[in-house]
């Protein structure tokens, strides 16, 4: 039993000896620290902090790009700084020619405007004259009714002789000479072509039979018209003396002659321009 314990003790001793030897046989002394090979630095090696910084940097740069882009878009109007001399000269020439073209166009248009204006004026003038002419000729030709100051001459039936066409004609001529502008005998408007002829029991004026008492309306200066009739030895006196008719001349400020007649169309006569 004792022998066995001795041999156990022996084995353990040997084992311990071996372990001790191993430790003593180690080559690492501790005075030379092991230097490991430097690992290759990986570009993608990130700690959390550096990743944050770099993504902020990327974001900032992209923001810069977008900002610059938008500013450039807002600013494309003034690009003349980047043009060189030749281009600037060309631009200047172009604008100059454009300016002269526009000036030319402007003067053309303004002369056109002037001519149009004067044409419009002329047209206006012509229209005015035409209107005046129309009125005048309308009154002369009897196309328009007329009113104004004048006289009404009333001639009764002649007692000693029949009032004939010649004395009526004289009366009308006298009134015309005195400046009567529009006249009417009874219901007949006196125009350039009016005629008077004798007929049974009266006169025929322009194909219309008129009977005494004759009423001659005339528009003109009342004073001159009545003078023309009443003048000594004139038509009025002749009518009274020769024909025994009463002649009554009434001046009025408002004679209305509304007898009108159709305008005649001239078949042969043409106006001279």
């Amino acid at each position, binding site marked *: 039993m004792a022998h066995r314990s001795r041999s156990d003790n022996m084995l353990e001793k040997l084992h311990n000896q071996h372990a001790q030897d191993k430790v003593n046989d180690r080559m690492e002394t501790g005075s030379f620290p092991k230097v490991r090979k430097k690992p290759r630095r990986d*570009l*993608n090696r990130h700690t959390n902090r550096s990743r944050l910084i*770099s*993504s*902020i*940097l*990327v*974001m*900032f*740069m*992209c*923001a*810069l*790009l*977008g*900002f*610059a*882009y*938008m*500013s*450039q*878009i*807002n*600013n494309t109007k*003034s690009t003349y*700084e*980047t*043009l*060189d001399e030749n*281009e600037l000269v060309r631009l200047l020439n172009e604008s100059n020619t454009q300016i002269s073209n526009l000036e030319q166009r402007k003067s053309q248009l303004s002369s056109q405007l002037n001519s149009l204006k004067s044409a419009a004026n002329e047209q206006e003038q012509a229209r005015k004259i035409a209107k005046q002419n129309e009125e005048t000729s309308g009154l002369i030709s009897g196309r328009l009714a007329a009113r104004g100051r004048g006289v009404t001459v009333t001639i009764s039936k002649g007692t000693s002789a029949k009032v004939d066409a010649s004395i009526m004609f004289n009366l009308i001529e006298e009134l015309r000479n005195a400046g009567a502008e529009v006249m009417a005998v009874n219901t007949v408007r006196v125009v350039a072509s009016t005629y008077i002829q004798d007929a049974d029991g009266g006169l025929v004026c322009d194909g219309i039979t008129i009977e005494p008492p004759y009423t001659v309306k005339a528009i003109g200066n009342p004073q001159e018209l009545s003078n023309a009739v009443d003048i000594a030895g004139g038509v009025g006196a002749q009518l009274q003396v020769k024909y025994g008719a009463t002649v009554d001349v009434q001046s009025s400020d408002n004679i209305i002659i509304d007898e009108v007649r159709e305008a005649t169309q001239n078949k042969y006569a043409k106006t001279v321009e």
Partner: protein
Amino acid sequence: MAAVLGLIIGVVVGVFVRPDIPVVVQPYLPIMVVAALDALLGAARAYFERSFSDRVFVISFLANVITATLLVFLGNQLGVGSQLQTAVIVVLGIRIFSNVSAIRRFIFRG
């Protein structure tokens, strides 16, 4: 994500602020914008190729912008500003087209 967000923020700020660009910077701004666009599209291509690195993006962005600006500045100093500007724009345009076509291949391949 950060890039898109930044773009949106920048555009919105640009729309609302409407800044007065200093006269000195005015001739270079369009070139800067095109260069930055090129960098952005390059980054997008790298993203699709799974080799995107934000450090590389930042550096390429700055390098693009500064190079383009300097080139145009040099051209202005030498009196060939507009020609050099055209050259820069053409080169950047070609790069943008090639980047876009690469991105297109990545999108429509699979």
